[in-house]
C-alpha cells in the first residue's frame, strides 16, 4: 500500500522508461476498475436475490447521481464534507495512526460551528463570523483528539480503541449539547438556531453547489502535496513506516504523533463546520450522518493518494445521493450502499494481493 504510482516514472526520458511507467499506470487502473466492476456484479446478484432488477437500480443511481442536473449538484455538494474527512484521514493513515474517531470529531465540529455562528453573525461581518466559527470547530475537534494522541504518544496505548471510544463519546456529547445547551427556543424540535441561507458559505455561480467543495478540493490537494513533497510530510511518513527507525533518525516521534492527530482531527472538524455553514445551516438532535466510517474505506481504496481519493469521494457521493433517492423510489433501503462499499473494498484488497503475488512470481 505504500508504493506510490506517482514515483514510478523514471528520471530518464527514454522511450522504454515511459512505456514502463505507462504500463504500470494501466495496470493500476485495471486492478482498480476491474474489482469495482466485479463488485457491481456481485452486489447486483444480491439485488436479484431480493427481487430488484440490478440494471434498473444502477441505472437509476447513475441517472439521479450524475446525469440529472439537480442530482449532480447534490452529489458535488455532498463531496464537500467528505473531502475534508478524507484529507484528515490521509494525514493520519500515511503517518501510521489509525484515527477511527472521525464521526465524533466531525459532529462536535458541526455542533460548535452551528452554536457559535448564529450569535456571532449578529455582531460581526458575515465572513468573519464564518471564519471564527470554523476556527472554533477546528479547536474543539483537535481538543477531542488530544487524549488519544497523548495516550498513544507517551503511553503507547493503541489509538484504534481510544479514538473509537472518543468517537462514541463525541457523538453523545454533541447530542447532549444540542438538547441541553444550544437549543433553539423558537422551535419544538430539538435543534440549534438556524443560520440564514444568505449568511451561509456562498454557492458556486448559479448552481446549488456549495463553495465548500472548492475548499475541500484545496484541502485534500494541499494535504497530498504536503505528505508527498515536503520534509514535514516525509517525517510523518517515516513515523508511519517504522516508528523505531524514526526515533533513531532523531525525530521527536511523540510530538509528531500529537501533531498528526491534531491535523487529522482539525481537518475533520473543519469538514463538520463546512457542512453546517455551507449546507445544513443547523444541527438537529440525533443527527449523525456517520460519514467518517464510510470515508475510511474510500481512503484505503485510493491507497491514501489525494487525487485518487477525490475520484473515490465522487463515486461515494454518487452512490449515496443516488442510493437515497432509490430508497424513496425503488424501495431499496440505502443500507445497500454499505454492502456495495464493503464488497468493493474486499475485492480490491484481494486484487491487490493477486497483483502483488503476480509481480513476485515474475521477478523470481
Amino acid at each position, binding site marked *: *500500500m505504500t508504493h506510490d504510482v506517482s514515483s514510478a516514472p523514471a528520471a530518464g526520458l527514454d522511450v522504454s522508461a515511459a512505456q514502463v511507467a505507462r504500463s504500470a499506470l494501466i495496470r493500476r487502473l485495471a486492478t482498480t476498475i476491474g474489482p469495482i466492476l466485479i463488485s457491481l456484479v456481485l452486489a447486483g446478484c*444480491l439485488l436479484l436475490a431480493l427481487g430488484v432488477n440490478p440494471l434498473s437500480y444502477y441505472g437509476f443511481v447513475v441517472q439521479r447521481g450524475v446525469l440529472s442536473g439537480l442530482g449532480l449538484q447534490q452529489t458535488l455538494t455532498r463531496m464537500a464534507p467528505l473531502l475534508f474527512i478524507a484529507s484528515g484521514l490521509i494525514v493520519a493513515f500515511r503517518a501510521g495512526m489509525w484515527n477511527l474517531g472521525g464521526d465524533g470529531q466531525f459532529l462536535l465540529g458541526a455542533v460548535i460551528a452551528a452554536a457559535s455562528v448564529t450569535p456571532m453573525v449578529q455582531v460581526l461581518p458575515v465572513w468573519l463570523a464564518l471564519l471564527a466559527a470554523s476556527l472554533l470547530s477546528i479547536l474543539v475537534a483537535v481538543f477531542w483528539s488530544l487524549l488519544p494522541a497523548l495516550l498513544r504518544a507517551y503511553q503507547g496505548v493503541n489509538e*484504534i480503541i481510544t479514538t473509537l471510544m472518543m468517537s462514541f*463519546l463525541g457523538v453523545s456529547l454533541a447530542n447532549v449539547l444540542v438538547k441541553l445547551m444550544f437549543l433553539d427556543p423558537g422551535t419544538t424540535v430539538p435543534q440549534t438556531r438556524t443560520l440564514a441561507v444568505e449568511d451561509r458559505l456562498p454557492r458556486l455561480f448559479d448552481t446549488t453547489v456549495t463553495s465548500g467543495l472548492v475548499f475541500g478540493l484545496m484541502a485534500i490537494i494541499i494535504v497530498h502535496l504536503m505528505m508527498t513533497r515536503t520534509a514535514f510530510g516525509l517525517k510523518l511518513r517515516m513515523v508511519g513506516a517504522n516508528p523505531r527507525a524514526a526515533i533513531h533518525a532523531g525525530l521527536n516521534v511523540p510530538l509528531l504523533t500529537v501533531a498528526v492527530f491534531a491535523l487529522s482531527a482539525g481537518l475533520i472538524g473543519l469538514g463538520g463546520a463546512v457542512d453546517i455553514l455551507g449546507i445544513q445551516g443547523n444541527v438537529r438532535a440525533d443527527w449523525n450522518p456517520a460519514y467518517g466510517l464510510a470515508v475510511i*474505506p474510500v481512503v*484505503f481504496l485510493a491507497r491514501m493518494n489525494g487525487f485518487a481519493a477525490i475520484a473515490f469521494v465522487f463515486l461515494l457521493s454518487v452512490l449515496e445521493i443516488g442510493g437515497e433517492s432509490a430508497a424513496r423510489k425503488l424501495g431499496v433501503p440505502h443500507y445497500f450502499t*454499505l454492502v456495495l*462499499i464493503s464488497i468493493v473494498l474486499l475485492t480490491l484488497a484481494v486484487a491487490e494481493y493477486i497483483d502483488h503475488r503476480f509481480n513476485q512470481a515474475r521477478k523470481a
Partner: protein
Amino acid sequence: MTGLFSDTFLAALLFGAVTAAIPLLLAGLGEQMSEKAGVLNIGIEGMMIAGAYVGFVCAFYSGSLWVGFLAGAAGGMVVAALMSLLCVRLGLNQIVIGIALTLGLEGLTALLYHFQFSRSYPRLPAAETLAVPLLSDIPLFGPALFRHHLIVYLAVAMVGVMAWLYRRTQFGLNLQAAGDKPAALDVAGIDVIRTRTVAVLFSGGMAGLGGAYLSNVGAGLFIPFITNGAGFLGIVLAMLARGRPIWVLIGAMIFGGCLSMTTAAQVAGVNVPIDVIQMLPFLAVMAMLVLFGRRASLPAALGIPYERGAR
C-alpha cells in the same frame, strides 16, 4: 426518588446488568483468543450482528432458542472464516478487512431485515429462565443473578474453561506463541496459520453467540444496527484484560451495569437526556485506559500477518 432505591428496582438493575453483560462477555472472550494468537479482529462487530440476525431468524422460524443460539454462532463463524481466509491465509490488512466486514454485515442484515420483516416486526416470546435451586432464593441477589436463561451460566462457565485452556494446555501455549513469536512456533513444527485460523473462527463463533443472545434474549427482536458498538466494547475488554479471562468477566459486568443504568434511569424518569447515560460506559473505558493504559500490554505480533521465511 424513593423508587430509585427500592429492592425491586435494584434487583431489576442487577438483572439488566447481567443481561447486558453477557454479549460483551462472549465477544470479549472471543476477541481475547484471537488477539492472543496475533489477529486483531476488528470485524467482530460484523460477526456479532451476523449472529444476531441469523440467530433471530432461526429462533423465530424454529421456535427454539437453542437452534437460534447455534445458528447465531454458526453465522458468526462463517464471517470469521472469510476473515481468516483473507487476513490469516492471504495476510491482508486486518483493519481494512475488519472495517469492510463490519460495514458490509451491518448493511446486509439491515437490508435483509427490511425485505423480510419490515411489515411484521416480529418478536420472540420472553426467554425461559432457569432458577438455580437455593441460590435463587437469596433476597435481592437471588432473582437478579440466578434466574437467567441456561446460556448465561454457560457463558460465565466459559471464563473458567478459557483460563484452563490458556494455562494448562498445549493449545493455549501455541496460541500465545502465535501472537508473541510466530516464527518460533513454526520452527517447533506447529502450523501458525492453522493456530490463528482456529482462534479467529472461535472468536467469530463467540461473537455470533453473543449477538444471538442480544437479539433473542436481551431484546426479543432484531432491529438494524442492534449491536450498536457492543463488538467494539468487546475489543476494548480484551485489550484491558491482558490475556486473563476473569478480567473480561469483571469488565463486562462493569459495562453491563452502565448499560443497565441507561434503561433504569429512563424507567425511574430521571430528567437527563439518554445520551448522558449512554456516555457512561465509554467514559469508564477512557478512565481505565488513562489509569492502566501503560499496562495494557498486547502480543508482540498483533496485527502482523505471518509469512514463513519473511525476514
